[in-house]
């Protein structure tokens, strides 16, 4: 069968259009589409980052710097960033003297490194906060010891009385030996990247702040007291 070229002439335009569509789709649109899909995904991510930044900025602008500074000072006084051995000794001495107790001996065990970042601190088993132990020997009445324990646990820096052993020989004033756990908390290793979201302070944490705000803060805690202490190896590992 012989094909007459004249018969095909009317199909030239539609064929050209289809060819054009196919060529443009294959060599222009398809590569562009791949780029656009990636751009769309990136834009979605960027929009989310911008929304997070906007939220964070609004939160930060809403925070009162002076108020936060005061609150952080209180929190740092209660929970120092480093092992505050002089501060702890000063508080023990002051609280003991205020209650009429005689400090016979203070032994500090396992002080270890004075400063470290939070993730380098090895916590004791079942412990929430890093700590070191002070063994304290005091002389005074049961009433004085009661007041001492009560006050030491509500004075900054944070300390907790673990074991109490009171003994009395004949008519002498009773001698009390107690183990006091002194707590600290190093600063976090990384402080705020711009993209990192701020985690708001919860109502439970606000209550905790009210609690520590009621602590007693002794002036001049940072000076090492002149104590008649027994073994006081502050820097042994």
């Amino acid at each position, binding site marked *: 069968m012989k094909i007459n070229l004249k018969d095909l002439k*009317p*199909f030239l*335009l*539609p064929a050209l*259009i*289809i060819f*054009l*569509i196919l060529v*443009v789709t294959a060599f222009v649109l398809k590569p*562009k*589409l791949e*780029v*656009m899909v990636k*751009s769309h995904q*990136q*834009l979605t991510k*960027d929009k989310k*980052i*911008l929304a997070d*930044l906007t939220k964070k*900025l609004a939160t*930060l*602008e809403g*925070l009162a*710097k002076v108020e*936060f*500074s005061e*609150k*952080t000072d209180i*929190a*740092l006084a209660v*929970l120092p960033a480093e092992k505050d051995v002089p501060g702890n000794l000063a508080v023990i001495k002051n609280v003991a003297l205020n209650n009429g107790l005689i400090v016979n001996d203070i032994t500090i065990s396992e002080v270890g490194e004075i400063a470290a970042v*939070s993730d380098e601190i090895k916590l004791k088993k079942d412990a929430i906060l890093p700590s070191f132990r002070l063994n304290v020997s005091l002389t005074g009445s049961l*009433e004085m*010891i*009661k007041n001492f*324990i*009560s006050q030491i646990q509500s004075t900054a820096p*944070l300390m*907790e*009385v*673990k*074991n*109490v*052993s*009171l*003994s*009395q020989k004949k008519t002498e004033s009773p001698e009390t030996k107690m183990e006091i756990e002194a707590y600290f*908390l190093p600063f*976090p290793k990384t*402080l*705020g990247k*711009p993209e990192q979201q701020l*985690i708001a*302070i*919860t109502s439970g*944490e*606000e209550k*905790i702040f009210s*609690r520590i705000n009621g602590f007693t803060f002794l002036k001049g805690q940072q000076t090492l007291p002149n104590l008649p202490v027994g073994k006081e190896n502050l820097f042994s590992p």
Partner: protein
Amino acid sequence: MRQEIDFLKGARGEREKRLKFLRLVKTFSLLLLLAYCLIVAAFFSYGFYLTTASKQIARETTLKKNKIEALKEVETLQIVLKQRLSNLLKFFDSQKTSDFPALLDYFSKTTQGINVKELSLSPDGKIKFSGEAAEMTALGQSLENLTNEEASQFFSSIVLSSLDKKEGGGGYLFTILLEAKV
């Protein structure tokens, strides 16, 4: 009567049909081209929008980051405060130790006439209380105090571990093991 006979009627009809089909193909292909052009235009417009929006967002992001950087000090204070308060919350929530001041207060009130020899308290609530009573009545009163209703608020178990009378008409030596409610 004269009648016209169209000998090309069949051929003309077929040609008209063919012309109609060709017109349809031509129109359809032009419409297809138009639709394709619209799609391409929309496609490139969206591409332009993506580029513009991306630049705009990048500008705003830099601006916000700079503003956040300027508030770095407040952010640091907030992070440090949050870290401390959240750890203190966990710490106070996990505290399950005896209330030493309350226990010592109770012992100081209830051991009148007793010479306290040893009193040891541990955080798990175990208490060892050793003393000397000059008379049996003082010891009896002290034991009564430790077993009354008020004492039940503090202790879950009270055991008189030992009771000895000192030789030569002396007093009574005793040891009581208690378990405080934690």
